[in-house]
C-alpha cells in the first residue's frame, strides 16, 4: 500500500503512522459527558470507504486525511488534515 502524500508524493506505507477514523479530529468539549465517552470509544468501522487520519512520520510530518476502502485498501483521496481543522470543518 502506498499513500499519495500531497506534499511528498506517493510514498510507502512504512513511512506513515495510523491514528484512526477522521472523526477523531473533532474532539468534543471535555464536559460533554456521554458524548465524550462515545468519542473516545465508539467507531463506525465501516466495510467500505473510510475517512481516516495518517501521520507522515518518516516524511513531511503532516497529518493527512485519507479516504481508503477497507475492503480493498484502494486509496481514493489524500489531503492535509489541518486546513480543514482551521476552517472548523473537521
Amino acid at each position: 500500500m502506498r499513500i499519495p502524500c500531497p506534499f511528498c508524493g506517493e510514498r510507502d506505507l512504512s513511512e506513515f503512522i495510523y491514528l484512526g477514523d477522521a472523526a477523531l479530529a473533532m474532539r468534543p468539549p471535555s464536559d460533554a459527558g456521554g458524548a465524550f465517552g462515545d468519542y473516545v470509544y465508539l467507531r463506525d468501522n465501516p466495510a467500505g470507504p473510510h475517512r481516516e487520519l495518517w501521520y507522515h512520520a518518516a516524511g513531511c510530518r503532516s497529518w493527512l486525511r485519507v479516504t481508503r476502502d477497507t475492503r480493498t485498501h484502494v486509496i481514493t483521496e489524500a489531503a492535509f488534515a489541518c486546513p480543514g481543522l482551521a476552517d472548523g470543518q473537521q
Partner: protein
Amino acid sequence: MTSQRFSIFSLAKAALTGHRTWTDHWRKAEPKDRYDVVIIGGGGHGLATAYYLTKEFGVTNVAVVEKGWIGGGNVGRNTTIVRSNYLLAANIPFYEHAMKLWEGLEKELNFNAMVSQRGVLNLCHSDAQRDAFARRGNAMRMHGVDAELLDRDGVRALAPFLDFNEARFPIVGGLLQRRGGTVRHDAVAWGYARGASDRGVDIIESCEVIGFLRDGGRIAGVATTRGDIRAGKIGMAVAGHTSAVAAMAGLRLPIESHVLQAFVSEAIKPLIPGVITFGAGHFYISQSDKGGLVFGGDIDGYNSYAQRGNLPVVEDVCEGAMALMPMLGRIRLLRSWGGVMDMSMDGSPIIDRSPLDGLYLNCGWCYGGFKATPASGWCFAHLLATDAPHPTAAAFRLDRFARGAVIDEKGQGAQPNLH
C-alpha cells in the same frame, strides 16, 4: 442423524473397508421459520456456543447461520495457540476456564483435535521485562494457573537454537506455561459442528445475514439470503465483522476491524518444541505436526476487512524471526494469509447483552479469539440461556467503556492497533 463414534474399532473397521463407510460429520440443515436461539456465525465461537447451549443449558431448538462454510473463517486462519498466561484478574479465570475445557475437549467431543500441551514460552530481554513477567507469573499462580519463570540457562535447556548472543536484545529469561500449546484449529470447528449437529442444532451454511427483523423495539429475527428466520434470542459471534453486522441493527460498538497476517514455512524435521514468543518485538513461532513453522507478529495497524495485509508487516515479522533464530533465514515460506480481527478499545472481549432486547454480543476478541473458543462458547451459552453473565466472563461487559472499567492488559488506552 447421529454421526459415528470414533474409536479404535471404528477406525480399524473403516480401514479394512477402504474408508468408504464414514458419514458426514454434520447435517446440511435447511432453515426453519423459527428457533429459540439463532447464532450468527458458524466459526469456533458460534459452534461452541450452540454445542454448550444444548449440552449444558438444555436449549435444544438452536440454529447456527454461517455466510460461508464451516471452517472457512478465522477459526481456520489463526496460528492454533492456546494459553492462559494473562495478568489481569478479569481475564485469568476466563482463559483458565478455556484451558481446562481444551484439556478435556477431545474426550468431550469424541474428536481428535490434536490438543498438544507442548508449552508456551514468552522470552524477556531486559531486567524490567523480567520483573513484569515475574508479576504476571505470580498473578497466574495466585489464580491457580501454572507458570514458571526461567533464567537464561532454563531457556537454553528448552531452546538451545535461539540466538543467545544477540547484543541488542539479549535473552535474559522467559515465562513458561507448560500447559499451553497448540490445537488443530479446523478440527475444533469440525468437532463442535459435529457435536452440536448430533444434539439437534441446525447448522445452515451459505446463509448470510442481511438484516434484522424487529418486533417493536425488540430484535425478533434475522433476514438472511435464505429467507427470514425468527428467533427468541439472537447471538452474534461474527469475529472481524461485528461492526458491520451490528450496524444493521443500528449499533455502534467500541471495535475496529484490523487485518492480522500469519505465515507457514515449508515442512522441516522437528525443531521447535513448543510455542516461543520474542519479547523485544512481536513475533511468535511454533511448529505444526506436519513440520511447517507457523509464525506471526503484529496486526497491520489500520482498519481493514481485506483478509490480506501489506509488506511492511511481513518485513517486521521476518526481522523478529531473524533476531530470534538466525537459522530461519535459510527456510522458505510456503504461504501467508490474513484474517480480520475485532480489535476492541481495551484489547479485551465483550460477552454481553446488547442495548437491543433479543440481541446478544460475543465480540472484540482481538487476535486472541482462538484460545478462548471453548470458554467463549460456554459463557455465551450461559448468557443466552440464563440472561446472566457467567462468573468467569462477568467483567466482559459492553458498558465497561462508558464506566471507565476497561480491561487493558497492555495499558495502551483506546488505540486498538496497539493492543
